[in-house]
């Protein structure tokens, strides 16, 4: 392993590049590239990488960047790109297309607040707007988790039982632009970990075919069911991918959902991305004082790990969800998932906290206040705006 001080963006760029390179003896790799703050350094890194069999193709928009990935993937290449905020919004149509085409493209989302008004800091509203695409979604908590999860995302998405695109999100600036110590996986190990990309329905000159033409309702229903079934196979595929990762690299990345200290906890907090690490420090400190408190790192948003969640909170009385996002007219998006999952558990208080929107710095003090609020609750209420920058 090469230990280095790198920004999150360069670490992500490295992971994409070595994953693409691992397909050099098959049908190569391709990246449709369009820069946007705070994602740009990923594209810069990829443009500077000397691919044996692969190209970074600069285009005029995010929509076209994903179109390039779709074309490359349909030709059998390992395809990937990255974007943020309004760039992701512009890409949306083709992200849906990639999912419905069943193309295992990896998309890095450097989370940034959607504008206007313009704001470049972290907020998960951009990637979570893709909630209903046929797209796996992972949220990385650290540089190391980011690098490892990108490799896992390729392996799971390309698995013949899944064949779906995968999104890996990181915090804009907090992760993307921060220099941290990270172990960059060596290329030989990545070559071992990632099988050649196999797109079974790729276009072949010897068998001309149309993909994505007009279908009747009956066929559409069938395709949606197929996608749902593929999603349902993800936990098994992911578990195998993590086992293999540990086997090759000697460490195990977080799974879809990590429960920490929940066995004896009355109060459980849930978060993802770097907020998890702040939360972990707060929970550790409180447990050192004897509190029965636990936490959940909800790393995977799609498919949402309902079974893992139910198992993790079997002894909990109160669950607080930290949502760095806001669905206007409803509330936090993770909270909606948790509330829907726990409909069978009316005894549990599920309370939403909207926190750190627009890049507000979620400090341990803020999380302490949230926990105090949660512990004092007899029943759940409407989502609470916890404005950290007020």
């Amino acid at each position, binding site marked *: 392993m090469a230990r280095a*001080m790198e920004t999150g963006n360069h670490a992500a760029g490295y992971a994409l590049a070595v994953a693409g390179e691992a397909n050099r003896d098959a049908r190569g790799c391709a990246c449709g590239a369009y820069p946007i*703050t*705070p994602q740009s350094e990923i594209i810069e890194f990829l443009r500077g990488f000397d691919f044996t069999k692969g190209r970074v193709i600069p285009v005029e928009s995010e929509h076209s960047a994903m179109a390039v990935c779709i074309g490359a993937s349909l030709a059998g290449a390992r395809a990937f790109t990255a974007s943020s905020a309004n760039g992701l919004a512009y890409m949306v149509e083709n992200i849906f297309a990639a999912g419905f085409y069943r193309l295992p493209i990896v998309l890095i989302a450097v989370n940034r607040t959607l504008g*206007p*008004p313009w704001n*470049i800091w972290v907020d998960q509203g951009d990637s979570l707007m893709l909630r209903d695409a046929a797209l796996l979604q992972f949220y990385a908590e650290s540089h190391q988790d980011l690098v490892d999860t990108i490799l896992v995302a390729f392996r799971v998405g390309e698995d013949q039982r899944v064949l779906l695109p995968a999104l890996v999100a990181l*915090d804009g*600036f*907090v*992760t993307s*632009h*921060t*220099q*941290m*110590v990270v172990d960059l996986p060596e290329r030989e190990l990545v070559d071992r970990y990632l099988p050649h990309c196999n797109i079974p329905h790729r276009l072949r000159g010897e068998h001309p075919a149309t993909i994505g033409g007009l279908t009747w309702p009956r066929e559409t229903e069938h395709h949606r069911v197929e996608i749902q079934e593929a999603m349902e196979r993800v936990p098994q595929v992911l578990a195998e991918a993590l086992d293999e990762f540990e086997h090759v690299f000697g460490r195990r990345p977080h799974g879809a959902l990590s429960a920490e200290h929940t066995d004896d906890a009355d109060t459980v907090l849930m978060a993802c991305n*770097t907020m998890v*690490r*702040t939360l*972990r*420090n707060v929970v550790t400190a409180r447990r050192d004082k004897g509190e029965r408190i636990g936490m959940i790192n909800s790393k995977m948003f799609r498919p949402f790990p309902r079974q893992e969640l139910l198992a993790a909170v079997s002894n909990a009385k109160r669950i607080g969800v930290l949502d760095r996002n806001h669905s206007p007219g409803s509330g936090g998006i993770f909270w909606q998932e948790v509330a829907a999952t726990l409909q069978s558990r009316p005894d549990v208080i599920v309370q939403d906290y909207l926190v750190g929107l627009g890049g507000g*710095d*979620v*400090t*341990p003090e803020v999380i302490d206040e949230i926990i105090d609020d949660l512990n004092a609750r007899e029943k759940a209420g409407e989502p609470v705006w916890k404005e950290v920058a*007020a």
Partner: protein
Amino acid sequence: MIELTIYGRGGQGGVTLAKLIATAHFLRGKHGQAFGVYAAERSGAPLQAYVRIDDNEITNHNQVYEPDHVIVLDRTLINPQILTGLKPDGWIILNSPDGPDAFAEQFSGWHVATVDATTIAVSNGLGTRAVPIVNTTVLGAAARVFDMSLEDVEAALVEVKFGGPNIKSAREAYERVQVKRLKGRLAAAPSAPPKEPVAGILDDVVGAMPRIKTGSWATRQPERQTLTPPCNHGCPAGNDVRGFVEAVGEEDYDRAMTILLETSPLPGVCGRVCPAPCMEACNRRLFDEPVNVRELERYAADHGQRPDPVKPWRKERMAVVGSGPAGLSAAYHLARLGYPATMFEGSAELGGVLRTGIPTYRLPRDVLGEEISYVLQHGVDVQSGRFIDRADLLKLSHEYAAVFVGTGLQDSRNLNISGSATDLMEQGIDFLDRVRQGQVRLDGEHVIVVGGGNTAVDAARSAKRIGAGSVRIVYRRTRAEMPAIKEEVDEGLEEGVTLHELVMPLRLDRDGLGPLLTCQRMRLGEPDESGRPRPIPDTSEDAQFDLRCNRVILALGQTSNLAILPEGSEIRKDGTLLGLSGAPIFAGGDFATAEGTVTAAIGSGRSGAWHIHRTLTGEDLFPPPSEPVAEPDVITMHLFNHAPRENSVMLPAADRRHTFKEVRLGLADGPDRHPAVAEAGRCFSCGVCNDCDQCLNYCPEGIVLRDGEGYRFDYGYCKGCGICSSQCPRGVIYMSEL
């Protein structure tokens, strides 16, 4: 865990410094974290960067609120606010030319380290004094404080791929940093001001963003200036060239005429015969071709109405001797100042050299007549056919309140040519006057004109028109050095005149076949005092040759005849003659300056009038020193489109050879063509705002405002980005450092 806050400005490398410090520790096996608070991705904006160092994995991703130490990269950011949250034993590391004691009061009780990183960095070529890149230098200073060795510093610089000057600079800083614990009670940060309530998105103007005061963000701000357009600067008559061109562009020819008549009574004349130094100065020459100012002036004169002349209202009477361009200008400007003026002219008709020296195919009589008539309508009296000699001048100086002498150049330069046929030589200026009076035909004659100025070209082209069989101009330098107006030379060549460069006549003899001009071939040597290459005789064998001819016309320039002036007097530089008995006598035009152009004579006549007025009344009309000239580098040329110059319609060369009809017919309007407006539209309006709105349209903050009083900047919301300045096509907006 050690936490560190770096205060700097965008472009100084604060985030990279954070990375270097973290890297130096990482290379020693520690965990490091380095990041900046990003907002304005813009040079000069204040920013903070943070570093964390620990033995274990760092899981804190928040900003640093209670740093162990602070570093300030920019002198302008040193203020008590940097003490916010700083731990009491922490270091304050300052980029400052002053030592720690300079901060005895501000940072009393604190550990302070100073280093003049800006000077060290700039001396090692890292950035400029305006934008020094000080990060690698400050790293050296920080190393001393953070117990890092020079080896650690160099290893980090190498790891982050910084080269020699950075390492040298860091080493110098390491050696030169001054450290001290200041005496006194620990100074405290001022308490943070209470936060203002946040504006709603619908507040202010509907749909507008909540506005943010830019505060210390801006390090510079736009200012407006008016520069002198190079055309105006280059016009010897002092015309507001840019102003009248703008009026032509707006099809307001009356206004164009009013602007021109402010300074010159002869726009119709200048629009035809001026050598147009304005066009030589025109910045557009560096883009495609200069604006065709001469034709635009003619167009304005041909199409604009003159304002009603004013009549004299003062009692002091003025005498003007000479009615050439200087005299006409002096009389005109004196009359406009209210003085009744009398013009004395030796010839029967007014106009001086404009009438006798410029052929009518260049300057039709009616154009000249109309402009002279306009001068006279200002209540100017004329005494023509009255030659003023020295005694007369002294007399006038007693009869009038002031006398202006503008008698031009009366004596022609001669050439020392020997030989038996020198009777065939004639002065060009005399020849032109005889041609004008219809006294001469040259049917079939072979004519040689000697010289390179306008008189030479005029004589040659006139000779062609009165039947000469051949006309040759011989000139001792090359065409490039000819003082004549370039277009006139072109037109002469079109009409069949030939030019013999690098030729100097020596003798004019006769042999059995007739007259014979012996010439010497020349070559160009080193520049002489006029800046032009000096012609020197070619020494090769066949350097002398003969040219057959019937007539030689000399056009070598003229000199003024100072015999009219009182004995012992001299012309002073400012054109005044003082110390005489009686009224003051002022001299102007070619008589005084020998500038040799109509436009210079006009300008000289006007300043003569102003001198007289100032002497009589004490009122000074001379403008204060003008603003600097708008040099080409202030013009944002890429904002303009290339456009070919509009040119005058010409009488065909074949038609010109036998008539004195005007050759240039001016910019001709067609059904769908308005070349004068198009040509005026080519003007850059150098250094003068013409309300193009480019600044207003491009300001990303919408802080350029325009109302009835023009443009202004709402500095409260200006971030100093400079886009207005870089988008100003004409150098009106510049950025001043705050």
